[in-house]
């Protein structure tokens, strides 16, 4: 039966609704005017008008990461599409499901250097999981449904659909719904081979010093995966460390949790990683920020690696037992198999392992010299945490020292409450991401922990936040430096601070007011709590300018190219040997 005639733009909106979409982040332009026209005629889909297309993608990422749904973006051709590229790359690196619709010049003009033409599929091919150019309106519905399937299945990622303007206007009576679309070839494996599960049970049973190394894959696999993770870790009594992207999957308050590992991870997490004998990697990808020097990375462990993407296996670190599948499925099977086996870990060995870990914990590696006269950035985040921990807050960040301090000092008890740009490290991510989170959770407390340099990269989004009354809080750890750059220059470049000081910063309080938000400032430790409370209790968007110590460095730190045991714990710790040439070239 032929469905009634619709034009391409109506098909787009119908397909989005059939995919369960309720909000689009976008910015109009000539090549998408037909879709904006169709949007105007309906109320089912909400459109959030951002102020820059990069921000549209970050907002969609914040929306997606905090809900588990696919984030949707709509931008115009040419500059609209090229502006979105950083956001798409960010979503690719951090495995965030996003569908981005880009306008394109009409099909007969493609290739003519037409006004606002860009080779969008060419440009975005390496920064998307997949992309499409739709030349025939009869393909449109199928392509959109396929795009959602590809974006959310397997290892999630961004998908671009390039839509020439004539296709948006062409009529078709061949609409098909999601249930009628089956992808020809893409079928990621979600359930693991049973041999792999039993091999893992056997390997774990022999462990004396087991360790879970968990990552963003646990978050991607849904809340059930996080529950299963804690259950399995408790069943074993084994310690758990997480990457930056996995924070929240294991409750930070759980005694089994050792904190984040890696370059700015805790002493106990990194030494446990170095010394463990069986490592269970659950949805983490052995990133260089985690492994440090590869030939000294966890050198004596047998490694189990659970990942849905076979290309993550043996990419950086060769493992002993790969398990391909979705974390939730695999953990479910593993936990059942473990219980069925009746195995128990060697309790004497486990006790000794924990005694060792407690000794490392005793170093209290996150302690810092607090001050009565000046706000220490760590203290600011600690106070923010203490004053918001009972409010189920969602935290996003920008990129730099403040991001690392947020990861260290904000304790996450649940998944999907922590949104940060890990893989690409995109300054300017946090504010638009927070806006996206707030759109998804209108009643929640959403805070962007920011640096004063990063926030200027997408500061225009204060205008978006004001327009939609999104009560996002921007908590700026203002050290007046690109702190992370300054820290590297201090440690690696003889304190030659080339271009890392920001002169003539704006007055953030006035800036907030200019955008219609509330501006607050704290410069003394004594006023911090009251001002934070004022921020939390405000029903409006707030920019909080927290003036902190300008020269504080972020510790612990594993200098680039060093091994886990070569960690610097504080300013008094000098690198045991000068950083190698090899280390110097690493980022």
């Amino acid at each position: 039966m032929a469905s009634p005639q619709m034009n391409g733009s109506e098909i787009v909106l119908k397909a989005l609704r059939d995919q369960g979409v309720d909000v689009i982040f976008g910015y109009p332009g000539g090549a998408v005017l037909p879709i904006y026209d169709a949007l105007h005629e309906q109320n089912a889909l909400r459109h959030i008008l951002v102020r820059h297309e990069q921000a549209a993608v970050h907002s969609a990422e914040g929306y997606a990461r905090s809900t588990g749904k696919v984030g949707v973006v709509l931008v115009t051709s040419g500059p609209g599409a090229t502006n979105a590229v950083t956001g798409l790359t960010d979503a690719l690196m951090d495995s965030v499901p996003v569908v981005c619709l880009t306008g394109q010049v009409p099909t007969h003009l493609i290739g003519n250097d037409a006004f606002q033409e860009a080779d969008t599929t060419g440009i975005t091919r390496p920064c998307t999981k997949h992309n499409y150019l739709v030349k025939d309106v009869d393909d449109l519905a199928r392509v959109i449904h396929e795009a959602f399937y590809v974006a959310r299945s397997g290892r999630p990622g961004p998908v671009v659909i390039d839509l020439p303007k004539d296709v948006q206007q062409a009529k078709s009576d061949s609409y098909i719904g999601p249930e009628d679309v089956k992808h020809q070839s893409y079928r990621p494996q979600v359930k693991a081979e049973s041999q792999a599960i039993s091999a893992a049970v056997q390997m774990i049973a022999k462990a004396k010093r087991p360790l879970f190394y968990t990552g963003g894959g646990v978050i991607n696999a849904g809340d059930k995966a996080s529950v299963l993770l804690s259950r399995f870790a408790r069943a074993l009594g084994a310690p758990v460390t997480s990457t930056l992207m996995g924070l929240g999957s294991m409750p930070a308050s759980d005694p089994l949790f050792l904190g984040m590992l890696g370059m700015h991870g805790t002493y106990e997490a990194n030494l446990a990683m170095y010394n463990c004998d069986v490592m269970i990697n659950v949805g983490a990808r052995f990133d260089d920020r985690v492994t440090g020097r590869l030939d000294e990375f966890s050198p004596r462990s047998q490694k189990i690696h659970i990942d849905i993407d076979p290309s993550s296996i043996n990419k950086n670190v060769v493992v002993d037992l790969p398990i391909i599948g979705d974390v939730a499925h695999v953990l479910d099977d593993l936990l059942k198999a473990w219980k069925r086996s009746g195995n128990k870990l060697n309790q004497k060995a486990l006790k000794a392992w924990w005694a060792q870990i407690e000794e490392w914990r005793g170093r209290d590696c996150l302690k810092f010299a607090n001050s009565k006269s000046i706000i220490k950035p760590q203290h600011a985040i600690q106070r923010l945490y203490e004053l918001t921990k009972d409010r189920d807050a969602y935290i996003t960040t920008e990129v730099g020292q403040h991001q690392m301090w947020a990861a260290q000092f904000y304790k996450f008890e649940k998944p999907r409450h922590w949104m940060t740009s890990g893989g690409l490290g995109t300054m300017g991510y946090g504010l638009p991401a927070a806006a996206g989170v707030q759109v998804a959770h209108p009643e929640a407390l959403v805070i962007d922990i920011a640096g004063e340099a990063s926030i200027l990269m997408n500061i225009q989004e204060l205008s978006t936040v004001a327009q939609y009354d999104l009560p996002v809080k921007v908590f700026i750890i203002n050290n007046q430096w690109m702190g992370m750059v300054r820290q590297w220059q201090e440690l690696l470049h003889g304190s030659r601070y080339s271009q890392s000081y920001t002169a003539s910063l704006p007055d953030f309080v006035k800036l907030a007011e200019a955008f219609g938000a509330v501006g607050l400032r704290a410069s003394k430790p004594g006023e911090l709590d009251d001002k934070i409370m004022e921020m939390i209790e405000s029903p409006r968007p707030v920019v909080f300018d927290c003036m902190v110590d300008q020269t504080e460095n972020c510790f612990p730190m594993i200098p680039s190219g060093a091994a886990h045991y070569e960690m610097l714990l504080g300013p008094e710790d000098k690198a045991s040997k000068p950083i190698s040439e090899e280390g110097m070239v690493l980022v």
Partner: protein
Amino acid sequence: MVPRDQTIERRTMAVLVDNEPGVLARVIGLFSGRGYNIESLTVSEVDPVQGLSRITVITSGTPQILEQIKAQLDRLVPVHRVSDLTREGPCVERELVLVKVSGRGNKRVESLRIADIFRARVVDSSQQHFVFEVTGSSEKLDVFIDMMRPLGLVDVSRTGVVAIARGPKGF
């Protein structure tokens, strides 16, 4: 840590893909973007009904890189199957070359004689030239081209390698 094997190996891989716009750019972009080698790459539609093309690619790298290449190809959305023909059993590899030799006199006679030895076919000729077609392993074509060089070789066009597994089983 499991030590890495650093020996460089050469592999022939077959990749079955949806014959859709941009699919070749995707595969080539993967190789250049991740710094993998391409020694030879051929592509053509093999199943017009289902719209499938087959890419044959010859690449080289350490065992770990080769495993990555296969996994990275496999995760491209329009890719149906990747097979490492070199590893998965014996395979037949063939390439075709067209070689143009211009000249007169003895050299012309000599080129015909050599072409005969290589079972080359003459696919175009005049008083002044031959175009030879030779099929075989890439090494055989290399030798043929080298031998034609002093005899007036003016142009070469090669297809790149196509390959198929030996034995009764399909892809």
